[in-house]
């Protein structure tokens, strides 16, 4: 059965091609498109489940599936287009096809009125293909196809409504940021091949230990290069700037790509090459610090955003920071666990926001008001009209804030625990733990603020629009319900021991991260008393955040964007995202453009090489030529003198 894993990729590929043809030939055939689009994902999910339980019964830790010889270059380098299904990729397979399928179903309703419907589904299916290739790839280059392929699809989908310049710019910005990351992965690949002689993940894990001593600089270089790729793809500091702008794409896209799947690719890669990271402990510290820092900073920015999708975007960046912190401390399983639970509740939050925006857009459209359907200041009191969406988003908010027994609590708590435990060996992790705790507090605060501004209080969008408000159709709320269930029960897959659970995910991923954990000093077990203290601290942070957020928002008088005064002071900086975008523009983008236009093109190319170098020699030759013709002044006397001088010269050379 595992050999049939290529079917999981083939279905969406067929869907992408079919929808693309439909988009060009008959864009109006919406029902056909939706049947193909969703059906193909369902097929993929079935295959994923089949592969999963086949793997459960398979003694081998990972099963290679070779499709064809991709690059048989020489006897020491022959890359095959091969998949390797192991426990980690099986789990990811399920998440991608599952959550992806739900989001496809949601998109049917959300994108129904959009003329580019077929094109949208073609891109979405293509994205799933590339994501699966990334996850299933047996060697780094094959995964790299997926890695850049998802970058391509995010470019296409962010800039889906290309008529508006801002969207195309956002797409381009996303792709470029990813490409900077890809540069890192490329360099890492070269280093890996020249040092280990192989690019296969299995080969790397086997040979890494033998070739690199613990703490070797080469391993560090490779790890940091890989991590640069991950920051690009998973939007960590310093390459996170593209994710908030990526909200320009349709909301299901944000849910699928910029919450559940693509952005988690970074964490996946780190876990996949964990053996290299383990050999360079410094790199793990870097990962942890960057993770924690990103979590804290992103959460702080989230506090002051008014666009509902921007808030969720920063929340995603922050939660990704958590995952990297988890992986950075060596608790790879907890990182993946948070990845999975985050996929559930963040997808739910985004889709919920999507149905809110959909409903508001519908309402404002009928009320002919040009208010922004995404700005929370135009919402309020939607609880009355959208009960289902409200209750499900409440569940998601509780999950993300880490309120027990929701899934968020278990995964976030495990990461905090691991950070604290590692902190006992290296003090740096204690700082990370503190940052993470602060981030948890802020997460709870802005989620409660979001919920309060959207669903509680009075509807600020004008009464005329109010009549048209209603809850989303079942195709949209259905997936929400399923995600809601998953957010609640998500924790069950890795229940920690003190709750009587067996930590199934920990054992399931053991073979994947075994070599890495071997090389690292094992995580000290946090015994009873301090463990309890840790958990209570986390829960307290969540509670304080939630109550504070709700209390502050419901008391404050929220004005519509037209009337609200200009931000000032510290909050102004937060609102403008600490001006990081403007900083990048001034420090990197503008100087490069100036350098290439003024210096490289006009000066070096046009002037130095062309006019001075080539033109110069041409003019020199013409000058000498002009001199020569001056010599020819028509005077016989002068000719004869030249003759005589020549004769004397010849005689002198001969006689001497």
């Amino acid at each position: 059965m595992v050999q049939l894993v290529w079917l999981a990729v083939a279905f969406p590929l067929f869907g992408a091609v079919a929808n693309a043809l439909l988009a060009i030939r008959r864009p109006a055939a919406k029902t056909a498109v939706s049947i193909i689009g969703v059906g193909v994902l369902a097929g993929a999910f079935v295959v994923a489940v089949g592969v999963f339980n086949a793997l459960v019964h398979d003694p081998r830790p990972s099963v290679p599936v070779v499709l064809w010889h991709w690059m048989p270059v020489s006897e020491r380098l022959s890359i095959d287009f091969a998949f390797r299904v192991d426990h980690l990729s099986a789990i990811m397979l399920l998440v991608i096809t599952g959550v992806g399928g739900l989001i496809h179903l949601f998109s049917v309703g959300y994108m129904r009125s959009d003329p580019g419907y077929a094109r949208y589904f073609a891109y979405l299916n293509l994205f799933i293909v590339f994501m699966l290739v990334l996850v299933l790839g047996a060697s780094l280059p094959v995964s790299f196809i997926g890695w850049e392929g998802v970058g391509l699809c995010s470019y296409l989908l962010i800039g889906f409504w290309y008529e508006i310049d801002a969207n195309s710019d956002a797409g381009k910005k996303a792709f470029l940021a990813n490409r900077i990351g890809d540069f890192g992965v490329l360099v890492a690949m070269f280093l890996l091949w020249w040092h280990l002689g192989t690019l296969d993940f299995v080969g790397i894990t086997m040979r890494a230990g033998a070739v690199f001593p613990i703490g070797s600089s080469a391993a560090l270089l490779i790890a940091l290069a890989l991590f640069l790729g991950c920051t690009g793809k998973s939007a960590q500091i310093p390459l996170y700037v593209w994710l908030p702008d990526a909200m320009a794409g349709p909301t299901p896209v944000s849910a699928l790509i910029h919450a559940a799947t693509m952005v988690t690719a970074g964490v996946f890669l780190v876990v996949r090459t964990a053996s290299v990271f383990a050999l360079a402990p410094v790199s793990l510290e870097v990962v942890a610090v960057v993770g924690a820092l990103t979590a804290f900073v992103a959460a702080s920015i989230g506090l002051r955003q008014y666009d509902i999708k921007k808030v969720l975007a920063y929340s995603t960046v922050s939660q990704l920071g958590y995952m990297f912190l988890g992986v950075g401390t060596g608790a790879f399983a907890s990182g993946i666990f948070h990845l999975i639970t985050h996929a559930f509740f963040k997808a739910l939050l985004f889709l919920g926001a999507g149905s809110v925006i959909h409903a508001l857009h519908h309402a404002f459209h009928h009320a002919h008001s040009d208010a922004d359907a995404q700005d929370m200041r135009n919402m309020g009191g939607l609880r009355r009209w959208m009960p289902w969406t409200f209750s499900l988003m409440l569940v998601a908010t509780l999950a993300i804030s880490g309120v027990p027994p929701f899934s968020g609590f278990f995964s976030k708590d495990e990461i905090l625990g691991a950070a604290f435990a590692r902190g006992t060996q290296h003090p740096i992790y204690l700082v990370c733990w503190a940052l993470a705790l602060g981030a948890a507090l802020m997460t709870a605060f802005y989620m409660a603020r979001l919920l309060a501004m959207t669903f509680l209080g009075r509807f600020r969008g004008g009464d005329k629009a109010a009549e048209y408000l209603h809850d989303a159709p079942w195709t949209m709320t259905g997936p929400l319900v399923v995600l809601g269930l998953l957010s609640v029960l998500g924790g069950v897959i890795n229940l920690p021991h003190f709750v009587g659970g067996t930590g199934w995910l920990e054992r399931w991923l053991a073979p994947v991260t075994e070599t890495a954990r071997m090389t690292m000093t094992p995580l000290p077990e946090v015994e009873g008393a301090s463990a309890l203290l840790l958990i209570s601290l986390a829960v307290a942070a969540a509670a304080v955040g939630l109550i504070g957020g709700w209390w502050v928002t419901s008391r404050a008088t929220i004005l519509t964007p037209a009337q609200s005064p200009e931000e000032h002071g510290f909050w102004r900086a937060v609102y403008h995202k600490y001006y990081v975008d403007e900083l990048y523009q001034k420090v990197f983008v503008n100087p490069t453009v100036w350098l290439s236009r003024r210096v490289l093109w006009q000066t070096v190319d046009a002037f130095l090489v062309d006019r001075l170098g080539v033109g110069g020699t041409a003019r020199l030759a013409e000058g000498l030529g002009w001199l020569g013709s001056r010599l020819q002044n028509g005077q016989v006397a002068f000719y004869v003198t030249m003759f005589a001088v020549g004769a004397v010269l010849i005689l002198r050379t001969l006689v001497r």
Partner: protein
Amino acid sequence: MPIDLSSPGGATLALLPELVLTFWALVVLMYVAWHHRDGHDMRTAGGLSIVGYIFAAAATAWLAWRGARPEGLSFMIALDGFRFASDALLLWIAAAVAILSVRWLIRQGILAPEYYPMLMLATVGMMLLAGAADLITLFLGLEVMSISVYVLAGFDRTRRASAEAALKYFLIGAFASGFLLYGIALTYGATGQFNFDLIGAQFAATPPTLMAKLGMGLILVGFAFKIAAVPFHAWAPDVYEGAPTPITAFMASGVKAAAFLALVRVLAEVFPALVDLWRPVIFGLAAITILVGNLTALSQTSMKRMLAYSAIAHAGYLLLAVWAHSDEGTAAVLIYLLAYSVTIVAAFGILASIERAGARTVRLTDLEGLFSVRPFASIGLSICMLSLLGFPGTFGFIGKWYLLSAALRAGQTTLPVIAMVGSAISIGYYLPVVLAMTLKPARTRQAHQTIRFPRPARIAVGICVFAILLLGVWPNTVLNFATQTAVQLRQSELPIGPR
């Protein structure tokens, strides 16, 4: 069949081609004395002269076919393959120039049929010069040629430029032949001999005295003038521009060919022992000539003047093979002279027709847009330019390649580099000609309407252009022939003295 040159019969046999041509010159002269009034006379005089060339060529062919060899010492005139090849080349050039000038003279209004005997006598002078085996014949041949060409240069009496050209050529020419003569005198003084082989043996036997060195130097100066090497070149541009176009073609190809053939023979037979003395001189001459010739040509606007400077530059290229002083060198000179003369005759043939009756100098700007009006003429001229440039696929390239090969095989590396720098510069004035004709639009509506290509000229030019392309791609036969004749130059057996 061996010919005993000392006996009068043998001598006449050895000089057969020259004698035949002189006889025909006199016949044409007699005819011209009575018929010199209208175009018809000009055409018949031209026809007769061409018949003369054919007979002379037949005589040369007969001698070559019979394998004429001197019995013992080659007394006055050399009897070897090299001479017969030179004669063939010179006769071909003279015939081509005669064909070109028939219609041209009539159109220019120069109804003086004496032009053709003059041309024939000049050719006789050239053949003597190229085939001379002793210094006296060398001097006589040179003077017969020079004096006839002085007259031909000034033939267009109506134009002041032609007169001025003749004067300049005459004055500086006479001055140069004074140097050559003084050189001959000193060489005679140093060895007591006039015969090339005897002098050669003398020099081989004894180290050269001061008088011998001075003699050789002055002879080289004389030759340097004749081949228009820098700094003795100053006369060439003015005379080429002033002289009537067919004569410019004649001077650029014929006179230069004769001078080079004589120079090669002199250096191969008279001064082989003094090789280390004259090689630096040739090196210096070649280097300066290539650079100055090419550079000055860049800034020329008149086509004839530009081709004059290009002629100087090509003289510089030829000096590469002269420097090589080897069989390949001699063969390379022969091939390059053939290639160069074919190209120059074709180029000047087309230019002569483009010149309107007013004999205004053809400027580069006058050629613009020629392709649209006269496609074949412009394609022909373009191929000539590419051949002069040494572009692969043309006979000029084969010539230039052979020159470089000869020089490089003789171990000389700097001159070929300078030669290629020269040809790189030369693209600067050859390409604009092609560009003007093909790519640029004609300046005025009726720009080239008045151009008429007379049939004989068109045929001659056509053959030349076809030869350039054919020999450019399939030069094997011509190359083999040239190498066989060149080898014979050195092996003239000498009864006394080592070779």
